[in-house]
């Protein structure tokens, strides 16, 4: 069997060519081969949500996606959220409102929340709870995360009406 596979995909808007061991998951490809360590792992079994990234705009648990399946796909990770030095409204709200304590679950929740707000710009508290129910956070008790997503939704909606 070939030790390495070749793959082209788009990562945070930039084309990438990768050579990697075929057993690797998308999570391992991102962290080990592309050195994008912002995406975290907490279980490697799809249980914690720390590894969530956007795959063609949909939140996916990258530990459950084989890298081989990603030929030609568009991947978004936490590293691609900010615009230059300006934080994405979700990032700013998370930092300002205490939604990130240890910060380990944060990248996965940010990406999940981004996907939610792109589909539903003004979600209810219940929809937010549902959307991030696959992302475990042991630090915050979730309240400040809910509030940060709501605050970011408001900022984004104000910006889009400007």
């Amino acid at each position: 069997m070939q030790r390495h596979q070749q793959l082209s995909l788009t990562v945070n808007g930039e084309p990438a060519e990768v050579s990697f061991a075929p057993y690797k998951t998308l999570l391992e490809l991102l962290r080990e081969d592309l050195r994008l360590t912002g995406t975290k792992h907490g279980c490697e079994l799809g249980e914690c949500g720390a590894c969530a990234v956007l795959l063609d705009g949909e939140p996916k648990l990258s530990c459950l996606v084989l890298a081989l399946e990603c030929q030609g796909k568009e991947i978004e990770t936490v590293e691609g959220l900010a615009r230059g030095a300006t934080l994405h409204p979700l990032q700013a709200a998370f930092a300002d409102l205490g939604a990130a304590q240890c910060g380990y679950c944060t990248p996965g929740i940010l990406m999940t929340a981004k996907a939610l707000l792109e589909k539903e710009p003004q979600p209810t508290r219940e929809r937010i709870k549902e959307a991030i129910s696959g992302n475990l956070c042991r630090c915050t008790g979730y309240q400040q995360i809910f509030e940060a997503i709501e605050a970011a939704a408001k900022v984004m909606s104000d910006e889009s009406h400007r």
Partner: protein
Amino acid sequence: MKVIGKPRRRVDGRAKVTGQTRFADDIVLPRMLHMKLLRSPHPHALIEGIDCSKAQGHPGVHLVLTGKDFPVTFGILPVSQDEYPLAPEHVRYVGDPVAAVIAKDEQTAAEALDLIAIRYKPLKTISDPQEALQNPEPRIHAYSELGNIHRLQAFEFGDVQEAFAKSDHVFEDLFFYEGNTHLAIEQHAAVAEVDGEGKLTLWSSTQVPHYVHRSLARVLQLPASHVRVIATPNGGGFGGKCDVCNHEMVVAKAAMLLGRPVKICLNREEVFYMHRGRHPVLMKFRTGVTKDGRLTGMHLQTLIDGGGYGSYGTASTFYTGALQTVTYELPRYKFEAARVFTNKPPCGPKRGHGTPQPRFGQEIQLDKIAEKLGMDPAELRLKSVLKANAITANWLKIGSIGLAECIRQVVERSGWKGRFRKSPFGKGLGLACGSYLCGAGLPIYFNKMPQSGVQLLVDRSGQVTAFCGATEIGQGSDDVLVAIIAEVLGIDPFDIRCVTGDTGMTPVDLGSYSSRVTVMMGNAAIQAAQKIKDQIAVAAGETLGVSPERLGFANGKVFFDNHSLTFAEAAGLAEEKFGTLGSVGSYKPPRAPGRYKGAGVGPSPAYSYTACVVEAEVDPATGWITVPKIWIAHDIGRTINPVLARGQVEGSVYMGLSEALMEEQVFRRLPPKLSGALVHKIPSLLEYKSLTSLDMPEVDTVLIEQEEGMSDPNCPFGAKEAGQGPLLPVMPAVANAIYDAVGVRIDELPITPDKVLRALERKAKGETPRVGPDHFPAVPYPEPVVVPPPWEGGDGNASKGFQKTKLKVGAS
């Protein structure tokens, strides 16, 4: 105040939302190799032989290590140095590490693990405390006090039997608190490297780099000056990264032997085996009361399941008895405890360390007492709340206490008076309180040195760098450090750089445990900042022509009336006058009044207090429990950053509710044909149930501050802890709310629907409507150490017996 008390983005907040925070497993070094550990599949066995030859010959394998490579033991407490980095001959739980493979990548290392052949001779498994008491042999550890009983402790503060004889009622209740684990989302990881000078550096997700530093030097037999431990920001700790870990020792040794960087990251299953989580505790409370609801005495017995090693267990055992006295007037108190060894992952400190279990029992029993006496449980508690500056029966010195205000706040905000015992069947409210340390009074190993040190570097550019050994585990210790320095120097927190948790670069701080950081590091930071401020004031005063004490420091300026200098200009003047600017501050807690042997666990510079009301809805058909809302008030003394303080309180509520309703680290026996071994039932995140965002109720959080001038003098700006105390009242408040809702007592955790249904069935049959332990085994507790309380002529020392003295009940 300009910084303290103002809501701010935490100093490390930006890195956390951009993915730039560098956790241990994010570290990648050139030529780095990867390590995996082989763990025992047997709960209790002797190793008769290990053959590593096939693994050593596997392509891509660089090194295989076994127990014979590690002759020196370690352990977090000096009294229990009972672990080997790799077990050489005796394994004590499923998951005990026995060998390590270092290979070019994780996959290769994992393949080679399968090629290691180990011959085990299985031993009888000791599965629970009952079995440990019944089976002194086979002994899990030779050093245990009696058979498989690791530690026995007994203390009596005043004649409790006499107090019971003079009481109107004596209540006797049994409770059980199941073990559970920390479940930090970051799995433990470590990277070791031999640097260019030939010295060892270890990056690790640890809460206690100082203790890891000491242990590495001991185990690897290196001069401590040649070892540097850097605590990477922890992706959650909760006590799970407080112990010195096998993998830290082994990965360091591997890097030294190979001369290349080596990394290990535990997988989730291994984290469940590493454990060091909440001890399962069986408790028996006997409490005497007068008919008007005053406590006369309490006798607490505990039986603690320690798992396979000592870990923090000796301290945990003391903590199951230490803090029963710090909330309400309790004239006499007796405490007997036993921790046993069993063949399960070792238990240790989890948020609240040893105190949530007895607090659970104590607060439910108070609810039962109030019910029996026909009193409102809030009134009963308010009547007995300790006075500020009290000394307790077991000789703990209480400073400020905001507990009464906490109770009043949650009672008021929850509408308690109109709802408690007045809600329709199926709905209820429950109240409970708690208290926690603001730092353990004594260090883990005996020494008289500072427990926290802060060093500051200031230069003409106006930049300030703060160095401190304190460890950022997500709780915001870096933010506390810069906030305090910024407040003293009148500058912006973001103008301060901090370097923390690095034994090679920072003054010693003992680590992030026992809620010690805000008080200990905070006091050291004030001292260091004040010294620099004094120097700057002298130099700036000369230039501005005013005496130094009349200068103000705020908003990045040093000023008097309309005359001002920028902080950088003033720092430059000080550098000109005094030379290079630097200062240090250090902190050691005040000496506690207790003098008896065992008085070292429980003292703290200050105590935080919390009250909590939980609203519960119980479906009597299914037993299903819903918690719509929780009110919590926490006596924090002074809030440093309200955004973070609220996060600590609500995170505690979350974790407490999760423990109350579902979290449990439980074990099962394999069928006999599969060896009959005792194994972890659920070593995965999916099967170990914890609350998700969908289950989390609304939380109403109030931070109670002491009034100006009433701040606790032991605390920096009066600030107390917020990370552990708020968890304590949540579990008993849930149990009390369920009783209010459907009239059944669930005296054990977790409180699951099946237990509620069972209790409801008993109620329907006219039996005692309760689920909980009904038997406390005979434990060979020793004769107690007898210590008269302060009001019975004691001086803090143990005595031969009690003088005949009058029982003092209630407030003096």
